């Protein structure tokens, strides 16, 4: 363990970054996430069995009061512009079959409720886990006669955000007993702990071992994924989970895997499980 810490220190010191070690540790803020004075969110939950941390905590608790406030008001939350766009897409006919999402699934508030809290699920056809983006594409190709969305293109982000938003407040819970979900979880865990890039960092280096500390001016969260697609103030738009995975890996100065690749699908299964019990926050607001 001590050796690991030294390696981390060397790797980071070289390029002028440092985890603020003992002096600046800011605990996640003790505050309640309530959306529109109505929906009480579960933003802290007892960790599931086998989790390395005692408690899972939403990234919301690591943000400044101003950023936290934006998420509590669905009017002020600019991510809702994407959700509204997703609603339009839901009701728009596309493809050779003359169907929209709504043609089969009617009102998303009913038919999609809970979906965002339970994905990724096992997909028998491909013998792989499938996430919401994948499920949308499967429906487009097989049922609508429309083209699959390319990564982050077309309506992929807004429609994913709209579907996940229907589960706002519901606790994340994956069914790992489906198909071979467990082996994808195992593979995702391996990715999570594997050090990579010129900085020699794993996901765990920041989000497990150093969450609550600062990496330069950035307050490190546990890296839970319950709010994706999430509105990032940095880009001023919705950012998809696989975009963030790739960005984070790129920042370790490593080659980053393709979106929806087996590596990142395993990581999605594993990191989603790590946030078990947290409310779906889509669209969350982050820095």
């Amino acid at each position: 363990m001590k050796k690991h810490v030294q390696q981390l220190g060397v790797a980071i010191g070289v390029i002028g970054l440092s985890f603020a070690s003992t002096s600046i540790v800011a605990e996640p803020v003790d505050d309640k996430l309530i959306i529109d004075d109505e929906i009480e969110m579960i933003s802290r939950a007892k960790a599931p069995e086998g989790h390395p941390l005692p408690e899972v905590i939403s990234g919301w608790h690591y943000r400044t009061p101003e950023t936290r406030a934006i998420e509590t008001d669905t009017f002020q939350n600019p991510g809702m512009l994407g959700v509204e766009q997703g609603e339009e897409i839901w009701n728009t006919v596309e493809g050779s079959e003359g169907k929209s999402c709504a043609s089969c699934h009617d009102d998303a508030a009913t038919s999609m409720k809970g979906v965002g809290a339970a994905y990724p699920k096992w997909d028998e056809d491909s013998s792989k886990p499938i996430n919401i983006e994948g499920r949308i594409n499967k429906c487009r190709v097989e049922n609508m006669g429309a083209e699959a969305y390319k990564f982050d293109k077309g309506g992929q982000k807004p429609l994913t955000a709209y579907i996940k938003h229907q589960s706002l407040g519901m606790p994340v819970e994956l069914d790992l007993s489906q198909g071979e979900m467990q082996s994808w979880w195992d593979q995702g865990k391996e990715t999570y702990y594997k050090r990579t890039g010129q900085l020699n960092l794993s996901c765990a280096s920041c989000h497990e071992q150093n969450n609550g500390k600062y990496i330069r001016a950035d307050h490190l969260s546990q890296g839970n994924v319950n709010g994706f697609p999430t509105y990032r103030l940095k880009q001023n738009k919705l950012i998809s989970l696989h975009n963030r995975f790739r960005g984070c890996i790129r920042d370790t100065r490593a080659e980053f895997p393709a979106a929806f690749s087996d590596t990142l699908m395993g990581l999605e299964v594993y990191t989603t499980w790590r946030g078990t019990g947290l409310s779906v926050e889509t669209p969350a607001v982050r820095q």
Partner: protein
Amino acid sequence: MASKPRVKVPKSASAGDIITIKTLLSHTMESGIRKDKDGNVIPRKIINKFVCEFNGAVVFSCDIDPAIAANPYLEFKAKVTESGTFKFMWTDDDGTVFETEKDISVS
């Protein structure tokens, strides 16, 4: 893809109340000083003017510069004395005006 402007106005109020109005528009607010990958300046394209009218009279307006963040958010107050219609107008650099209206009943 542009979505329609979002505006929040209370549906009803008492005469003399000062109400809070919130507005949010989907817009990139391109500053005009960023460069693209090839080093060419990306032309400025922002919302440069916002006007809120009530029953035809201006209540509040803004002159906006590129330092306002993308997806411009504006929150302000209005004193209402009668029922009527708020009209909101955002003017783009290219001359496009985005408009929306909200009614309020005042008793």
